[in-house]
């Protein structure tokens, strides 16, 4: 019964994502077509003459009515065609897929880092209100939301690269001494480990550390604040008082009873955290010359390569929707209340 109920909930949630995806596609279509100025001139690039602009207008179908263009746009998307990047001459889709693992590796490690720090911090702060841990938590939360990511990154580079010399030069995923490992997952650290190349894995990890910490510090604040608030609220609950009165061990009360319930609002805020993290990812990639899709978009912006930028925006939005879906599915799976509704 509960198994069926859960899978039905998950299915319902998947259906709800459809209008959102339709909205995203409409917005990204509007961003490319219906804005002031001549899209054909945009896509032809600044050096194009009138004849080549006209040629692009016809080849992109910009002379046809807007609804027809939209259908063509959706058909292109289904075939995975995001247009040609004018700066590199490569299909945008190809560029994005080769660069995506770098961004995912960075964001993933950053989120693991910030969850590993923020959740214990929030739990400790909630169990010991007004202690030094609580004050530390509050300081971290307030500072965390005020720090511009690009500034934290530069400060870390100055201290750990220039002053202390602990960190390798902040230029990309691997220094020139190492060859990139054979591609399996696209994540350098994992690929190097799979190839049993410990030296390369260590070098890739060293390159990854500073940018991941920079991005992680940015997402620390919302997770810590939410964990603390949720734990505080749950710990005041009557079932916790009952569990304590029944003489259950402190550890069991805290982790089995309190944390399992407190984790739910934290999972919900992860959606907002992802939104911030994916945006901040662009800035961190620029600071550390990280060859992900964010720095690709920044380079494309500088040379007015619009197909590349719009492809990037669409990819990020779809990635964000997918992450939100995963969060919601996890939520359905871990919610202890759902098991009791028989």
């Amino acid at each position, binding site marked *: 019964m509960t198994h069926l109920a859960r899978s039905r909930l998950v299915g319902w949630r998947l259906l709800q994502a459809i209008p959102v995806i339709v909205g995203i596609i409409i917005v990204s279509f509007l961003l490319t077509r219906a804005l002031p100025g001549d899209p054909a001139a945009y896509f032809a690039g600044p050096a194009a003459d009138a004849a080549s602009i006209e040629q692009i207008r016809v080849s992109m179908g910009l002379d046809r009515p807007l609804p027809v263009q939209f259908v063509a746009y959706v058909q292109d998307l289904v075939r995975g065609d995001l247009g040609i990047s004018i700066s590199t001459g490569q299909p945008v889709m190809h560029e994005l897929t080769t660069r995506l693992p770098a961004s995912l590796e960075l964001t993933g490690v950053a989120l693991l880092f910030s969850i590993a720090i923020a959740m214990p911090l929030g739990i400790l702060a909630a169990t010991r209100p007004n202690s030094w841990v609580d004050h530390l938590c509050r300081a971290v939360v307030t500072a965390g939301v005020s720090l511009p990511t690009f500034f934290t990154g530069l400060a870390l580079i100055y201290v750990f690269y220039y002053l202390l010399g602990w960190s390798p030069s902040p230029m990309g995923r691997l220094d020139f001494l190492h060859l990139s490992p054979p591609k399996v997952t696209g994540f350098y650290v994992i690929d190097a480990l799979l190839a049993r190349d410990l030296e390369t894995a260590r070098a890739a990890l060293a390159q990854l550390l500073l940018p991941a910490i920079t991005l992680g510090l940015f997402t620390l604040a919302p997770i810590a604040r939410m964990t603390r608030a949720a734990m505080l609220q749950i710990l005041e609950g009557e079932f916790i008082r009952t569990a304590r009165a029944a003489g259950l061990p402190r550890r069991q009360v805290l982790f089995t009873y309190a944390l399992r319930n407190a984790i739910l609002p934290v999972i919900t805020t992860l959606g907002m955290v992802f939104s911030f993290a994916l945006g901040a990812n662009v800035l961190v990639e620029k600071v550390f010359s990280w060859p992900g899709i964010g720095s690709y*978009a*920044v380079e494309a912006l500088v040379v007015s390569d619009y197909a590349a930028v719009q492809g990037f925006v669409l990819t990020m939005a779809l990635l964000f929707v997918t992450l939100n879906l995963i969060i919601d599915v996890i939520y359905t799976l871990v919610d202890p209340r759902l098991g009791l509704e028989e």
Partner: protein
Amino acid sequence: MTTLTADGASPLAGVRRFLRHLLYVMTDNPMTAFAFMLFLLIVGAALVGPWLVPYDPLATNAGSTLQPPSWQHWFGTDQLGRDVFSRVVVATRLDLMIAVSAVAIAFVVGSTLGAIAGFYGGWAERITGRCMDTIMAFPLFVLAMGIVAAAGNTVENIIYATAIINLPFYARMARTEVAVRRNAGFVQAARLSGNADWRILAFQIFPNSLPPMMVQISLNMGWAILNAAGLSFIGLGVIPPTPEWGIMVAEGANYIISGHWWLALFPGLALMLAVFTFNLLGDGLRDLVDPQRRT
């Protein structure tokens, strides 16, 4: 006659009570008082900064490039010999102007849409909700990048993009605040005495939903400043010689690995201080308007 004097006295008494409460909040929480002083400092720098700075923020000086901070140049000089202190102070106006305009547009448009959605419900609510969901479906900074890239690389478009990504917060808040008051006693009283819908919405419900929105505005300002600075950091909007914090950090970034830390540090600190001030002020305002949620 007595009612008239009572009516005449009550606003004044209200103002006095508000001021007493303001004084109480300020003295009770020193952080709020501190934030308020910082806020005055920032606004002061934005208003009169350009007349106070010791050097012309655009004047280059080939004789003194990349000088570390000294008594002559408090924050040092940059790669073209421009005084970093003067540039940081003068930049306050532009950064604040972008954030204030963006938040103002987002507040006016967002709260109007949200208030209509919350008051009438039905289709108005569904369409507004769907549009806001679509905006929120994008990572917000990335959407701002896309908008500026498509609409053109100007300061105005930075403002519009920042306003658009802030819209959903105001629309959602206004919708909830209006919806809970839709059938309140004072609304029914106003309706019975013959007020039109828009009149009730504008003069009865909206002013009552304003306090929580003010808190949101202050918290949002910090975020808007961060976003705008982030956009100019990646080269959007502001054109180089113009002093602006984000672009100054971006230019200073090239000199960090050679050890010239002051180029990026001081504009970065100014940015941080501004965001920090608005966040603290938001918390203080919450104490002021909503005593129940005091932490």
